[in-house]
């Protein structure tokens, strides 16, 4: 079992948990967190390189590094792991954000407990991305959700109890749907008389879910994951939750956890039930299309920085699900890139907001102004994050959005010309409009918060970023710019891997 490299994505956090429990003072805690997350980054980079090497050597299997160990025999539950390019991209993203998050919570109160929960959460995240067994996947999913309640409830700010409760309950509600869906898939995972399985690869190979069941199970799983992906109208946990969460938790949650939703929608809902995905995608297309513009419009009038960013996340994550539903290779590539891009960018945003909030003790943009004069470093980072968010070329947002638009426009036109309705086309155009609205709310915030005269003279004494804050932001900015400048690397990484899946989906066209 331990000869499989993927296991270490769970082992390292678990070891970190153990070490954290032994830590005596904050220095040791920081050391454990930093060394551990560096280890995770190293591991994921090694995995990336090794993976590319294997692919270059002509390994065409849909998942590499697969391994499977029986866990509960009667229900055929395994601890099954395996990765493709998408999972690797997500693992890389998660490890980077955990790293940046550790630095962003450098001076948190009650650090030991905080980091224990945070690392437990990331255990869940890593476990989720390496699993290919639906049951273990679900288990890790829950492991990632529960610590959120405590992290927000204890270390949060504002209406933290309400927000923590709301977030947890809504996500749990989503998991309820999800569980129904997963169990349904399990009971149809093999042809009559065959051995039932939770393993995604086997389920896809068997392709034995009856059509009628698909149209019931697809919405279940899609909504289940979609709640975490902040799909309209199940997004309201996101503004409140993010507004109350401490910095690192916001980062991790918006940066990685919301991606669990998109990843799950793709990997479970669409991967296993392509027919239903094809037939029912229109419902979710409408919902996600609405999310895209709706989140952006809502962000235009909010005055709380975290609310603005949370609504912006609704908009961007809506774009992820939207692109996935286009069932088009380019759009799906774009969706994965948007996940990466949004993860990094929004983590950067939340880190910066947390740092600004930590100094000014307010998040109302009406109570701040002229931050550029007071904390130039943070302000410049904020402008960069904003530019990434509104899709400036050279930063990650642009490539992701353009890939999505090109792909979904293609899907939309193909539908339209084939006489299959203009829904996709219309919603593609509507989603395109979001680039303008995004510009409006980003520039509104930048203008009010960073530029202009200093609003409050008390703010003049505030200091600029400390070294750990700089490290945290620089890490994220470098990644954002890296994706933005060299998109083709990620494009091929993602694109090469999910072709078989895509073809099985497109085969339905």
């Amino acid at each position, binding site marked *: 079992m331990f000869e499989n490299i993927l296991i270490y994505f769970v082992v390292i956090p678990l070891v970190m948990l153990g070490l954290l429990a032994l830590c005596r003072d904050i220095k040791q805690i920081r050391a454990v967190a930093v060394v551990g997350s560096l280890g995770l980054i190293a591991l994921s980079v090694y995995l990336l390189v090794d993976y590319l090497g294997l692919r270059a050597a002509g390994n065409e299997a849909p998942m590499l590094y697969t391994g499977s160990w029986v866990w509960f025999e009667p229900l055929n539950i395994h601890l099954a792991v395996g990765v493709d390019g998408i999972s690797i991209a997500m693992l890389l993203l998660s490890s980077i954000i955990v790293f940046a998050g550790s630095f962003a919570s450098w001076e948190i109160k009650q650090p030991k407990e905080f980091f224990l929960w945070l690392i437990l959460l990331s255990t869940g995240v890593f476990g989720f991305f390496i699993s290919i067994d639906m049951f273990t996947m679900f288990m890790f999913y829950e492991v990632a959700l529960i610590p959120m309640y405590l992290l927000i409830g204890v270390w949060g700010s504002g209406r933290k109890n309400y927000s923590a*409760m*709301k977030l947890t*309950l*809504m996500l749990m509600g989503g998991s309820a749907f999800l569980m129904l869906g997963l169990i349904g898939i399990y009971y149809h995972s093999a042809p009559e008389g065959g051995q039932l399985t939770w393993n995604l690869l086997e389920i896809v190979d068997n392709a034995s879910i009856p059509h009628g069941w698909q149209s019931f199970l697809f919405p279940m799983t899609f909504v289940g994951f979609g709640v975490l992906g902040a799909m*309209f*109208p199940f*997004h*309201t*946990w996101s503004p*409140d939750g993010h507004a109350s969460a401490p910095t690192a938790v916001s980062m991790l949650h918006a940066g990685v956890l919301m991606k669990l939703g998109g990843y799950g929608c793709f990997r479970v809902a669409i991967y296993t039930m392509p027919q239903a995905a094809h037939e029912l995608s229109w419902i979710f297309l409408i919902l996600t299309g609405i999310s895209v513009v*709706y989140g952006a*419009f*809502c962000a*235009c*009038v*909010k005055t709380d920085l975290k609310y603005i960013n949370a609504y912006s996340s609704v908009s961007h994550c809506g774009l992820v699900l939207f692109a996935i539903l286009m069932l088009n*290779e*380019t759009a799906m*590539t774009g969706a994965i890139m948007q996940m990466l891009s949004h993860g990094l960018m929004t983590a950067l945003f939340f880190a910066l907001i947390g740092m600004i909030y930590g100094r000014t003790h307010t998040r109302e943009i009406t109570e701040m102004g*002229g931050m*550029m*004069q007071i904390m130039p470093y943070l302000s410049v980072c904020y402008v960069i994050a904003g*530019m990434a968010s*509104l*899709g*400036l*070329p*050279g930063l990650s947002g*642009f*490539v992701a959005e*353009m*890939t999505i*638009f*090109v*792909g979904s*426009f*293609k899907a939309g*036109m193909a539908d339209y*010309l084939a006489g299959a309705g203009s829904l996709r086309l219309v919603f593609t*155009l509507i989603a*395109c*409009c979001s*680039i*303008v609205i995004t*510009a*409006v709310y980003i*520039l*509104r915030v930048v*203008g009010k918060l*960073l*530029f*202009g*005269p200093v609003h409050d003279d008390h703010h003049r004494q505030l200091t600029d970023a400390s070294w750990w804050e700089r490290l945290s932001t620089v890490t994220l900015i470098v990644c954002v710019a890296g994706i933005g400048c060299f*998109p*083709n690397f990620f*494009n*091929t990484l993602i*694109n090469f891997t999910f072709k078989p899946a895509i073809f099985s989906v497109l085969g339905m066209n």
Partner: protein
Amino acid sequence: MSITIPILILAIPLFMFIFLGLCGKKMSHLLAGTLGTLGMGTVLVLAYSTAFNYFFSGDPLFINEAGERLQYIVFNQTWLQFTENLTISLGFFLDPISAMMLVVITTISFMVHLYSLGYMRDHHGVFEKGFQRFYAFLSLFSFSMLGLVVATNIFQMYIFWELVGASSYLLIGFYYTKPSAVSASKKAFIVTRFADLGFLIGILVLSYYTGTFNFTDLTSAPVAGLENVYQVSLSTPESVLSIFQGSAAPMFMGASVLTWALVLIFMGGMGKSAMMPLHIWLPDAMEGPTPVSALIHAATMVVAGVYLVARLFPLYLMENSALVIITVVGALTAFYAAMVACAQIDIKRVLAFSTISQIAFMMVSLGVARPEYHEGLGYMASMFHLFTHAMFKALLFLGAGALIHAIGSNDYTAMHGLRKYMPITHWTFLIGCLAIAGIIPFSGFFSKDEILSACGNYSTLVYIWMSLVAFLTAFYMFRLYYLIFWWKEHKVHEGHHAPHDQPWTMSLPLIILAAVSVVAGFIPFGKLVSWNGEPYDFMAHFDWGVASISLILAVVAIALATVMYRKENPLPDKMQAALPALWKWCHHRFYWDELYMFITHKIIFNCICRPLAWFDRHIIDGTMDSFAILTNKASEAIRPLQSGQVQMYVWIYAIGAILLGGITILCLI
């Protein structure tokens, strides 16, 4: 041709941006400025050598035996691969117009770099705060603009198009503590962004049908035997033609898809080139430092729209209706901007509207270019005007900058009679005015005259309309000139220095640009740039009738301005009183800004955003909360059963037992 020089042309500004952006704070102001200027100077030399090489070396890659200029892709690197054949590449495209643009951009940019060394400091020679940042942004802008013009494909153009917009945003908002500058930069970005939405959709439509982003695939034919070399052709390649022409041409809502795509792409051009109704950002953009206005909002970025249409011109030729739309939009904008320019007080605003009007000239010129009229005179004229306009408008802006620097105000009412104090500025400004008014032998005369004759070939109505605009142009420019330099004696306030000419760093660019403005008209432009690569001898087609009429109009306009504004007199006030409504509307720019404010703030903000946010908080979130409340209520309802009263428990237990027992017993009996 080696690819080192082209790469350096792009890499040096980019490096300068990163270097000055990261390390600028650590170095002295002067060092940063000098480094930036030197960098730009190097780029200038490289770009000149590239352009010279392209135009005059006679290399078979650039010109064929028939003397036709060719298009050459110096390098093309895949940047992002969407599908097997749909790819965004970053490359370097050399053809007549891109070579010409390289010259224009590097010249103006270098002038502005040099000029800013003097401009961006106060009278005591203290550099402004953020001086290094200013040079970093200038470098970023130069990089983006150069990348835009050498784009090998439409998506590369879009990428740099966006970067140009962002650097323009940063530069307009350079004085970020000034709320008006912040809102102007925001406005500029959002308006152009809106236009870019059209551009993007246009690109998507075009690429969906043609399956390519490459300009060469869309507009030109490859030359046999030479790699990366293409014929500049009038008709688009067969592959593209076959998609869009014939009875099977795809239609959408009554118009052909190509028309839609081209009009949408033109919409992007309208945004960047400030065509009505997307022009509102440009006057406000004057909040930026004046050198920025000269670089971005007069000479380079604003002509990107013209360049875009010129780049895709073979496609536009396929769709007459798209060209008609361009002509109409251009003509209306030209007239509107000229009218408004007559009634502005802020000298930079006058110049801004003059810019809008002149760019509209170029657009009209492209719109009226047809193969049947003098081999597409309009295209060549448009490019020529782009070139000359860049020079003299930059000159005018830099001159205005010198005035503002000396006076400390944008308002001509604070100036008046400055000719004695600032002779260099005065003479160079006069040359600029003469050039834009179209007086022989200044450069504007030649280019404008060709535009007018192209219009005359196309339609008399357009010709008369544009001549009227030319007349207004001469009038408002000289109104401005007289109001700044004549009108009445300058009053030097006590305790202030008398205004004086500027340091050499500022004067030198003025003099160079003035010299260029004088002689640029004699450049055999048609030999270098034409729409199909064949040299075009415009002296052979020179229409003396049109030339003399336009010259007469310009002289009459100048005379009128002289009468009205040379000496202080009540005539202007009388005019104003005679046509109060017209003056008011012109002065308020026909209330476009107010209309936009109404739409964005009153309608979109108050009628869409706020209700949506309310809906989200109260309806959607309310529904979610009401689930929670419902659950709570239900639990409250059944909670009293667990009262903690042991007697109640016993009672319930007893009753239950009795019932069960009773039923059993009744059954047994």
